[in-house]
């Protein structure tokens, strides 16, 4: 094969392996899921042996939207997200700024400590916190009880926020890392000249640092929004521990339940598509809003 010819087809050859995997395990499932969402399986006959698979168009979607429990689950994660995401981002930002103001040795120790939970898989983080919520095992519950605060982390009203805490615990340190990476890329002269002009640390933080870490804040927020809408493992792990987590607690839990308990795969596919759609709209919408604000 001529050199030139080889150089021309080389890029396609290099992209091909990834491309094949991407098509088979990314694009294809999405297309197939959307396809299945347009059908409905009805079983008939004595033992459900006979039946048909019929094209029902958007009927599954109408059914999903009319399902109160599914809609509730969406509302629940939106509520959690509305509180948890800003809380976590602000917390990460504050910690990153504080770390920036202390000596290097302290800051790298603390940053490592904050980052540690990121290395703990979500399921295991949920197991750890599950035990930290159960009275009788949890030292937290015991200590709080000792000072007269009888907080039930797993009650109907509290469990959502207890789950939110698990998410924050896992991800805040990682977000600190992202923001810090951006902070460190800001040239030091900017701070020098500001300080020479008499700006206080607080003013420097507000006027220079925060605006300049904007890309990092946008990035972490988008992924936080996407992540919280997918909430599955944390409530799933808590289910055997408390009755407050129903089988339709979050949208993904509902879809899972629909597929593997109700055996209605088509409706589950519909719910998965709806969840993906909402995620896409919210994450894209947020990015758009941020871009518009930047160009003002």
């Amino acid at each position: 094969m001529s050199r030139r010819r080889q150089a021309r087809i080389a890029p396609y050859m290099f992209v091909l392996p990834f491309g094949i995997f991407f098509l088979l395990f990314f694009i294809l499932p999405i297309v197939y899921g959307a396809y299945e969402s347009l059908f409905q399986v009805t079983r008939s006959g004595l033992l459900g042996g006979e039946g048909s698979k019929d094209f029902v168009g958007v009927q599954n979607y109408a059914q999903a939207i009319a399902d109160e429990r599914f809609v509730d689950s969406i509302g629940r994660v939106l509520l959690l997200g509305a509180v948890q995401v800003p809380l976590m981002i602000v917390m990460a930002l504050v910690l990153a700024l504080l770390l920036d103001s202390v000596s290097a040795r302290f800051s790298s120790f603390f940053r490592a400590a904050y980052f540690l939970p990121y290395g703990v898989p979500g399921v295991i983080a949920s197991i750890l916190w599950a035990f930290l919520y159960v009275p009788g095992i949890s030292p937290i519950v015991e200590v709080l009880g000792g000072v007269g605060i009888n907080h039930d982390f797993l009650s109907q009203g509290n469990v959502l926020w207890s789950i939110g805490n698990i998410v924050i615990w896992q991800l805040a340190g990682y977000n600190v890392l992202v923001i810090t990476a951006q902070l460190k890329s800001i040239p030091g002269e900017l701070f020098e000249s500001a300080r020479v002009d008499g700006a206080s640390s607080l003013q420097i933080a507000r006027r220079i640092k925060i605006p300049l870490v904007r890309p990092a804040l946008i990035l972490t927020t988008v992924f936080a929004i996407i992540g919280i809408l997918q909430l599955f493992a944390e409530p799933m792990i808590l289910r055997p521990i408390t009755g407050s987590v129903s089988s339709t607690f979050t949208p993904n839990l509902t879809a899972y339940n629909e597929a593997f308990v109700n055996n209605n795969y088509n409706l589950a596919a519909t719910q998965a598509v709806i969840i993906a759609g909402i995620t896409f709209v919210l994450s894209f919408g947020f990015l758009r809003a941020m871009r518009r604000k930047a160009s003002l």
Partner: protein
Amino acid sequence: MPVTTRRSATSSAARSRTVVLTVLILAGIYFLLPIVWVGIAFTKTSADLFGSFGLWFSDPRPVDNFLLIIQHENGIFLRWMANSALYAGGGALAAMLLCAAAGYALAKFEFTGRETIFNIILGGVLVPSTALALPLYLLASQLHLTNSYWAVLLPSMVNPFGVYLCRIYAEGAVSDELIEAGRVDGASEFSIFAKLVFRVMTPALVTVFLFSFVSIWNNYFLALVMLSDRDLYPITLGLSTWLGYADRQPVLYQLTVGGAFIAIIPLIALTLSLQRFWRSGLTEGSVKG
């Protein structure tokens, strides 16, 4: 106008420094508490788990517990750990290779469809793995390919973000001169990639490996829907099933807690020692706009 004396200026600086350190320490306690707790809980029997105070030892029996955990159910714990290593390690390795090749091509070659392909891949970055789990299951079950190692391994090898990272890095780190030199020497495109480019891209490759590793390790939904044979479970799924049965078999509380501790030791060691790769990976690609 009150004059700020040197002394009060210094003491207010010292005060704010104390506040800063206090906040940082409190945050440190928050993040380390569950890990410290599970380390202590690992040494306890079931009775002490429920009986003694959580943040201090009580008749520690780490070795006994360790043996109990790895021997339970014919050593399935170790099998689960090995499975996780396979899924996360194998999957991340493959992902790294796929991303490296694709990223290199997108960075250093001009070809029709380049930006379209890249934008489609980029769109994939916004699609969370949970969104794919159920559709993947539906597809796999149609083809009777569920409940196997491949069912979890193959989808895990797709990491669109990794392609993005590799492209950005290759654009900066792989010089045209390097490639030209290889061509002048008569090397094939593939050996230029495998021998020259691969080595230069190493930091990005390690970063992609780590991101993929963590992502696969965290992918509970996929393993849950695909696998019904307990021998195939990753450690996360395994521990969650133990916990699920614990109310019927109380020793499982102790085994789950202890198992969780054993499982996170290698991960924490990995996270701490390779922290800088996350930092550099982020500076390289994501936060630059």
